[in-house]
């Protein structure tokens, strides 16, 4: 049964058909699958599979990437309410777009993947000042700040990631909070993330999520490299 459900769910996600994906999940629950099974045996493997597909399938696309993450996040959120025991949360991330930037597509893709992978996400929205990233990370005890930027000047300018790094440094928080960045400029120049003071970047949602989970563990283990 599980195999059939996984196949049907994956097909729905591949076709970016949100309605069909939910039908599969509802049917699976009606047939006795637990909420835990839905998340850990269907949704998370599907996210992983879809994101891996992006690198090997020439017809995989941004819309699929976006919808996969949204569907996964929505299913996970609904299933979490039905969990017998609250799941273990891996860690916490504050995320937003850099000051001056209102492009939120990439942020939503990463948020969707993180939620499905049991990382708590605090969404700070768009056009977020650097101080707010740090203040909110401290307030929520987050291990990672994720700064999304779609334009070169918001990615490399003085008010984005560079300033977040500067504030973390001033407040002595660099071992406690890591910074990741994402967005088109980093894709066009893969060395750019280092020059703005980030600890990492990734080209897609699932790679970003894996990297963020790695950084959360680094912080929890003491913050060293």
């Amino acid at each position: 049964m599980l195999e059939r459900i996984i196949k049907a769910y994956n097909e729905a996600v591949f076709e970016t058909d949100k309605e069909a994906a939910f039908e599969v999940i509802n049917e699976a629950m009606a047939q006795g699958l637990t909420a835990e099974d839905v998340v850990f045996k269907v949704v998370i493997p599907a996210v992983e599979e879809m994101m891996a597909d992006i690198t090997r399938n020439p017809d995989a696309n941004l819309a699929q990437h976006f919808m996969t993450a949204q569907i996964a996040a929505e299913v996970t959120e609904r299933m979490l309410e039905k969990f017998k025991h609250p799941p273990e949360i891996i860690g916490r991330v504050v995320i937003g777009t850099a000051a001056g930037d209102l492009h939120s597509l990439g942020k939503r893709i990463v948020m969707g993947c993180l939620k499905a992978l049991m990382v708590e996400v605090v969404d700070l929205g768009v056009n977020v000042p650097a101080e707010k990233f740090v203040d909110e990370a401290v307030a929520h005890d987050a291990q990672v700040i994720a700064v999304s930027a779609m334009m070169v000047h918001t990615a490399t300018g003085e008010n984005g990631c560079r300033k977040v790094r500067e504030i973390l440094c001033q407040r002595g928080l660099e071992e406690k909070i890591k910074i990741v960045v994402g967005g088109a400029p980093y894709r066009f120049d893969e060395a750019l993330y280092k020059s703005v003071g980030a600890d990492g970047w990734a080209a897609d949602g699932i790679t970003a999520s894996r990297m963020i989970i790695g950084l959360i563990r680094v912080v929890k283990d003491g913050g060293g490299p």
Partner: protein
Amino acid sequence: MTPLDILVAAINGTPAPRIPVFCNLLDQGARELGMPQQQYYSRGEHVAEGQLRMNRRFGHDNVWSLFYVGKEAEFFGCEKILYAEDGSPNVGDFVIKTWEDIAKLQVPDDITTHPAWAETAKCLNILREEVGSSRPICAYLTASTSLPALLMGMDKWMELLMSGPADLRDHLLAKCAEFYQKEVAAYRAAGANVLVYSSPFGTVYFVGRNRFDSLAMPWMKRDLAPGGVGNIVYYCGMAPFNAVIPDVMNELNIAIHYVSPLDNLAEAKSIINARLLQHDGKGLTCGVIDDIKLIHWTREETRAEVKRICEIGKPGGHFLFGTGVMPMAIPEASIHDMLEAAFEFGTLP
């Protein structure tokens, strides 16, 4: 030959001393005139003057009538633009906040009488007077399938496109197509002669093959049908689009392609040149440098990359060297290095 003659020769595949060299300098104009961006972009005279001065300083072939990409949203009521001194202005408030706002969206009856057009018209008048007979004057027009991203944000548009009600999506697209048709007519009448059709959603990279065929292509046809494809350049906002070049050439009849630096340029060139006969021997591959790297590249690195692009593009002709929207963080010396190399390696026998 003037730069305009050289461009026409490249499209036609007739002899010329060199390839055309485009350099897309926009926000640098404010720095050139020594004024804040908001002041610079408030007057068409400023933008025209900025373009002309930068053209004299750097010597590239083209000038731009584009202020900033978000300007198109102003025709629909956007009143808030986020200016930055180190980069491009950005839409600061989306006019479509909820799906209900789509019904209220108004396409101006005559965009040339709309206040958002007035300064662009002044800019175009000046450019046409000053360099219209000798240099390509570029205009930027967003395709109907991509304009909603400026009106409601990319993620909200993606949501409506992928999982929203089809009738609402099509209602919005119809308004955007109507706007495009009016806009392209206005630009043509005002003297723009390189019309960059920006269509990021017209790629399988964005929407996949099924939606490209069933949605993007029909709407692009609708955009382009009334005015035709004369002087239209296919551009996907730097997203890769080699996979759809045959479709765009066969079905839309567009033979000028501004190729993504993320695409394989040799492949693009070969796809385009193989179809020139269908287009009366006319067509152009625009080889685009990854200009974000110019921010930190050395002179040698810049020259090597320009040389590589020109060596791929020159054989068989029908080739132009170009840039993306050059970030302001690129040092002036690097712009000179890039253009010097483009003129040197772009020389034709």
